């Protein structure tokens, strides 16, 4: 059955901004699908509000709309583009829900748009808990005992028929949003309403929990000829009760016998057929009772998912690409396996390695949130690691996380046991400690409900730790390594002392230690880990390893366990015998990726890395990607010429560099992760392309940086550096409050705070500062009420190109990753822009930047302050590239490869070439962290961003509100409560809103101020502490439609916490800075006068490069 000829134009919906539960895996799947379908000759219309994606690059689809993902915009786009079909299964839950709504209202039918992949009935059967349960029962499969309820009354009736603990699962949500585990009726009442609120259809499933059962997932594919294959099985390390996105997971499944596995496989086949997913992939989750083996079906996603991205990377089988081809009519046997090139895609991949995924959390940014894992996902990213054995892959995955290993050595055996049954992101390390303290596998298994098979491996690793730590050689180390105590030496000479050692040391205990070292490496121990055990330096372990020839080999991921030859160089390291890497004689460049997504380092950096690959390919280089994030486009084996799926630690990067011997390494595009490796890579004798390591390091050096700023005659906020607590306090007194304080070398404003007085300074020092000269504390005078501007530049060391001048909406002090911004600026004068450009140019030239650089400025009246310089790609690069149409990273890569800017002029983006405004706005995960304040500050908290384009700034701002699913009201009541400094501006806001027909409610102080200024119709309302009915009551009764609330000082912050939290939970738009409030009012005004337009990226761009 060849492809369909009745459709020509296909609409693909992306998944929007990165949020918890929906991350860049959908950029990976969407990009794959767009590429595959375009190649088949279809015209692709793409809608996605997220500019930091590869899929929204103008070359990926034919018609790209970076527009809000809601019904009204989609309807406009469909009316304009008139696609023949809509493919809804690649953009996560967002796309699926939108497609369902469009189909349900008959809009698609009316416009002759057919649904590909999943029909309306399939979507409903899979997503509607009641229909799903019924469908499962019809095919004889069991589901947990449950009731679907639409009201509190129904829920309490259901309670009579169910036993605690129960799981509350809202319908049609992603990432288990709104889900809870409840153990008693009080908790039940508490969490039920929360669940209802989170479900777009106000429906929840109340289900008897299968807590502690083993959890499995199967990735299933089906074509229209009814061929069904299982691409991959995934086993959760953590038992049921932890969202699979938050679980450590292992592929393939390890603990089921074949007969047990076939029961799941048969069930999966039946389910995909029963639900009626005609073509494409689905993810099905099962729970299996650890003792009886009884199996129940938990849920099914009739679309590609985070798990399918993981399964694709784990197997080498590109699920999204195949799903797209199946959707347009191909069948599985008609599609070739990319890797073997001989066999068809209709088969089930077999693995000869083990894959471990570990989620990455950012709890440190949300200190009030209990660090307990539940059915509602909280992780912000993940790493995947591949090893020949579970031990190796687990060890590599833990190393990939880039987190400091939590220590539990102070806990007693009993304390550890008490904690083992609490699922947490640190539990894996707790388990290691439990074994160190002598807890048995049986006990750990009993407490944690983790399958003993996994635990045995961990226990064996701990056993090996013990043997190594007590090895005789550790006491006589000095004799062996005569030079081990010498100062740091050149890396290539490190092996020398050990070589000498080997000649003289042939003792039994030495060779015994060498074999232990080999075993440790095979079991996934890092050099640093072994070094710590025997109290030596990692370099000594490395030297010993190298002269004893204990080195990693590289094996290929080939979908078939070696049965057929493979042609795709997708590799992983392992300490086994045979090396399969084939090294070409071409000139090569290594690009180091950005590792797991985390707040502050997300998809933007993957975008940059992928662009570098494309640029380098175009220039004729062989591209080599190293990364460990399975969600990304960069780890698609189709992206770079060669992919090494490895932890981004120096230990894992170095052997690849040695093997490949590239002409250079790119570190400035992947955020902090590769930058951290730059020095060591250079020391090892490899060339860092672009801006030199010295410059990179100097930008973090305050003294040096200040001297440069001074030399150039520029200003920066008064500042001090402190290496001790006393010094810090002295510096604070000297500078005077308010201050911005932060440790050096941070990303995303980690531990960064604005401090207003000495008490808080002391509190900060006691929790956030260790005091060391390696990582000093930086104190800057905080410039209040300043406008912040981001300037991104390209530089070849001589010439500078200003890529973009972005004006922030929120004042300086709100982390640049969290504030909204506009390109072009909405209030900056031409002369000011010129000044900023001049200063940026001077800095770039002075620093001899080669590639990209980002500078943050603060503007206060006529003064310009340099806040920060980042000698690397920033998170605004994809946004600017989307606005201007210029491939900034591509140009930067060319610069790094030695091609000067002047050689091929880059057209300047001017007001004429950008005849519109683009607003970037961030999205926040606060809803997942119920105890956190949602006020913005210097610590970055957002997970993703959207872009909104309109002809005027106010309209763009209004559209941005739509895109973050918090549309501005055009009528109703507005609540205003502001700090004193903001009152005069708040007056403007209030007066304008009244003119626009809104009513205003304010807290007493603000209200009196307004009245004194002549706004008599403003109503007053109680603060929460002033007695009821108060502001939160009004919010809850939905009497207010917009909240503008600015605060200062801890007391005021505490008092207004509930206002922000309640607005967030009820999805009432709220602004916590007056500057954003002003923009909102302008936006409402504009919105009332005209309708939103839609813009196709390919029509907008006038610049070409």
């Amino acid at each position, binding site marked *: 059955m060849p492809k369909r000829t009745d459709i020509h134009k296909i609409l693909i919906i992306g998944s929007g901004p990165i949020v918890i539960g929906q991350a860049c895996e959908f950029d990976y799947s969407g990009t794959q699908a767009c590429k595959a379908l375009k190649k088949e000759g279809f015209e692709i219309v793409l809608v996605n509000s997220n500019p930091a994606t590869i899929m929204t690059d103008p070359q990926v689809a034919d018609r790209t709309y970076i527009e809000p993902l809601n019904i009204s915009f989609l309807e406009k786009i469909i009316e304009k583009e008139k696609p023949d079909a809509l493919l809804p299964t690649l953009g996560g839950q967002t796309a699926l829900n939108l497609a369902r709504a469009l189909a349900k209202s008959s809009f698609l039918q009316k416009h002759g748009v057919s649904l590909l992949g999943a029909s309306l009935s399939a979507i409903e059967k899979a997503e509607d808990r009641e229909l799903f349960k019924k469908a499962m029962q019809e095919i004889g499969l069991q589901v947990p005992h449950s009731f679907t309820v639409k009201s509190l009354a129904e829920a309490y009736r259901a309670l009579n028929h169910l036993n605690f603990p129960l799981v509350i699962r809202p319908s049609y949500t992603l990432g288990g949003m709104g889900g809870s585990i409840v153990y008693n009726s009080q908790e039940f009442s508490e969490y039920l309403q929360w669940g209802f609120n989170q479900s777009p259809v106000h429906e929840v499933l109340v289900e008897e929990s299968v807590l502690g059962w083993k959890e499995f997932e199967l990735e299933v594919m089906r074509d229209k000829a009814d061929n069904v294959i299982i691409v991959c099985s995934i086993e959760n390390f953590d038992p049921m009760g932890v969202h699979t996105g938050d679980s450590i997971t292992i592929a393939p499944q390890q603990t*089921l016998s074949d007969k047990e596995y076939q029961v799941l496989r048969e069930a999966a086949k039946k389910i995909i057929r029963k639900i009626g997913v005609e073509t494409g992939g689905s993810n099905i989750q099962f729970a299996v009772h650890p003792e009886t083996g009884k199996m129940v079906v938990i849920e099914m996603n009739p679309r590609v998912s985070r798990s399918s991205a993981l399964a694709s990377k784990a197997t080498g089988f590109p699920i999204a690409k195949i799903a797209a081809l199946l959707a347009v009519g191909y069948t599985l046997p008609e599609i070739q396996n990319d890797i073997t090139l001989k066999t068809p895609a*209709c088969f089930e991949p077999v693995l000869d390695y*083990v894959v471990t995924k570990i989620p990455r959390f950012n709890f440190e940014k949300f200190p009030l949130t209990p660090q307990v894992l539940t059915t509602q996902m909280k992780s912000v990213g993940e790493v995947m690691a591949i090893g020949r054995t579970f031990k190796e892959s687990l060890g590599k995955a833990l190393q990939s996380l880039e987190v400091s290993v939590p220590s539990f050595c102070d806990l007693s055996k009993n304390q550890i046991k008490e904690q083992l049954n609490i699922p947490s992101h640190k539990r894996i390390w707790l388990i290691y400690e439990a074994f160190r303290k002598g807890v048995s596998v049986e006990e750990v298994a009993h407490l944690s409900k983790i399958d003993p098979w996994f635990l045995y491996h961990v226990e064996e690793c701990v056993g090996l730790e013990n043997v190594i730590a007590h090895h005789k050689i550790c006491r006589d180390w000095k004799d062996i390594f005569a030079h081990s105590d010498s100062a740091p030496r050149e890396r290539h000479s490190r092996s020398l002392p050990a070589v000498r050692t080997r000649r003289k040391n042939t003792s039994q205990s030495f060779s015994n230690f060498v074999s232990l070292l080999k075993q440790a490496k095979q079991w996934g121990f890092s050099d640093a880990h072994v070094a710590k055990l025997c109290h030596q330096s990692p370099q000594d372990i490395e030297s010993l390893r190298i002269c004893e020839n204990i080195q990693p080999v590289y094996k290929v991921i080939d979908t078939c366990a*070696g049965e057929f030859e493979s042609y795709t160089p997708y590799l992983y390291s392992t300490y086994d*015998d045979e090396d399969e890497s084939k090294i070409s004689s071409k000139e090569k460049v290594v690009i180091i990726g950005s590792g797991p997504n985390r707040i502050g380092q997300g998809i933007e950096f993957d975008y940059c890395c992928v662009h570098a690959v494309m640029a380098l390919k175009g220039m004729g280089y062989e591209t080599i990607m190293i990364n460990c994030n399975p969600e990304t486009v960069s780890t698609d084996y189709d992206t770079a010429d060669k992919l090494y799926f490895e932890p981004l630690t120096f230990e894992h990067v170095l052997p690849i560099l040695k093997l490949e011997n590239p002409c250079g390494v790119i570190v400035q595009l992947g955020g902090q992760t590769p930058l951290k490796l730059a020095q060591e890579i250079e020391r090892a004798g490899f060339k860092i392309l672009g801006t030199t390591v010295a410059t990179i390091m100097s930008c973090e050096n305050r003294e040096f940086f200040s001297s440069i700023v001074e030399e150039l005659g520029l200003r920066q906020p008064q500042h001090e550096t402190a290496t001790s607590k006393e010094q810090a306090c002295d510096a604070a007194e000297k500078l005077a409050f308010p201050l911005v304080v932060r440790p050096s070398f941070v990303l995303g404003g980690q531990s960064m705070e604005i401090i207003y007085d000495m008490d808080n300074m002391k509190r900060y020092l006691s929790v956030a500062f260790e005091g060391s000269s390696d990582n000093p504390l930086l104190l800057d005078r905080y410039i209040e009420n300043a406008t912040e501007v981001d300037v991104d530049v390209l530089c070849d060391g001589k010439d500078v190109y200003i890529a973009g001048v972005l004006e922030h909406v929120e004042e300086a002090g709100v982390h640049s990753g969290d504030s909204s911004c506009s390109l072009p600026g909405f209030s900056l004068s031409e002369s000011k822009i010129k000044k900023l450009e001049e200063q940026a140019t001077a800095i770039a030239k002075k620093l001899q930047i080669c590639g990209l650089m980002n500078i943050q400025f603060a503007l206060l009246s006529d003064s310009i302050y340099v806040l920060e310089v980042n000698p690397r790609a920033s998170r605004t690069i994809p946004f600017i590239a989307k606005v201007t149409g210029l491939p900034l990273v591509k140009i930067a890569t060319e610069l790094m490869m030695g091609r000067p800017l002047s050689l091929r002029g880059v057209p300047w983006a001017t007001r004429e070439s950008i005849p519109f405004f683009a607003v970037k706005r961030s999205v926040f995960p606060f809803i997942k962290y119920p105890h956190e304040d949602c006020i913005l500050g210097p610590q970055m908290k957002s997970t993703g961003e959207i872009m909104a384009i309109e002809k005027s700034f106010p309209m763009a701002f209004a559209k941005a509100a739509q895109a973050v699913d918090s549309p501005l009201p055009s009528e109703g009541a507005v609540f205003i409560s502001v700090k004193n400094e903001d009152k005069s501006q708040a007056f403007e806001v209030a007066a304008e809103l009244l003119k626009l027909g809104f009513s205003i409610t304010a807290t007493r102080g603000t209200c009196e101020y307004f009245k004194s200024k002549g706004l008599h119709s403003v109503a007053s309302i109680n603060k929460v502490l002033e007695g009821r009915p108060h502001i939160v009551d009004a919010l809850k009764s939905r009497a207010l439609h917009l909240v503008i609330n600015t605060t200062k000082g801890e007391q005021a912050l505490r008092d207004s916490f509930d206002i922000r939290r309640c607005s967030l939970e009820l999805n009432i738009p709220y602004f916590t800075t007056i500057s954003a409030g002003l923009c909102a009012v302008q936006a409402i005004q504009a919105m009332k006068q005209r309708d939103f337009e839609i813009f196709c990226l390919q029509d907008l761009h006038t610049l070409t490069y």
Partner: protein
Amino acid sequence: MATSEAFLFLEDGTLIHGKSCGARGTSVGELVFNTSMSGYQEILTDPSYYGQIITMTFPHIGNYGTSPLDDESDKVWAKGLVVKDMCEKPRLRATLSLPSYLANNNTVAISGIDTRKLTRKLRSQGSLKAVITTESTNSKNLFKILEKEPPMLGRNLSFDVSCKKHYRIENKQAQWRIVAIDFGIKKSILKYLKERGCEIHVVPAWSTAEEILSLHPQALFLSNGPGDPAAVTTAIETIRNLVGTMPIFGICLGHQLLCLALGATTYKLKFGHRGANHPVLNPAKNSVEITTHNHGFAVNHPGASKSEGSHEVSIQNLNDHTLEGIYDPKNFLLSIQYHPESSPGPLDSLYLFDKFVEMMRGFHK
């Protein structure tokens, strides 16, 4: 030699050091690889592996221990097992750990081997003869052992694994009385036949047509089994005499023997098909089944059956386009190269047992 040591020695002279994880001793056989990720116990007890040392491509073997439910015959028939990592601890529900089970079955096994390297070697060089030993590292001795081992080509092994005399599997709900020739039959095949209403008379591999006919069967089943099909000449003769007298259903070796009886030829595959993920196109349904394979020989493609007026449909492997089965409704013949009973593997092809019953119904209506 240390008590836990073991060596794997290949006929190309490669000597690989590993760890013993089964019985002690020395064993020789044809080294083959299997890509199934689960089902090691079924594989080890499948008589078709007689004469072979199996290397599993999946690195962790023994994860869920062993259970009598997973036995495909009364003992381990494989000559040895080669793995990357052996799980020594049985899970709660297991009867025995795999190493203990292997030891009880007197089967040598070696772990700590780069099985991917081995697999790639077999892929490029073809199946090799190999020895696993916990006793000697003297390559001269090991070569001698290898030399004594005859090549797989031309070897009739089914007589070694067959039942020695006729027995009957009772079935109170029996609707059909069939004869199954035991060339190394798997328990699950008998189970699926019984479930479909067959009373099964299992007869030795060397049974003659007369002996079979004397049991008055309504159909004949030809089982799987080890070795070179072309070497089982008596059985080919028996089958030739029975074609046309009743419906015949063959699996694996049974398929090859039926095709040989019909005049086709067989050949040895370079490294065979062993795994649970092979796509097979069923032309009748125009759909693909994911199937379990275990065969080192295959039937030559064109005209597997040359009998007059055959209405044969041939079934193809989508990976390498080898013949995976024939169906001749007119002559009531159905033979399948792969394993519809799977065990281990996907259950996509169980319907073939129904098809056999359907054939019987058609023949006897």
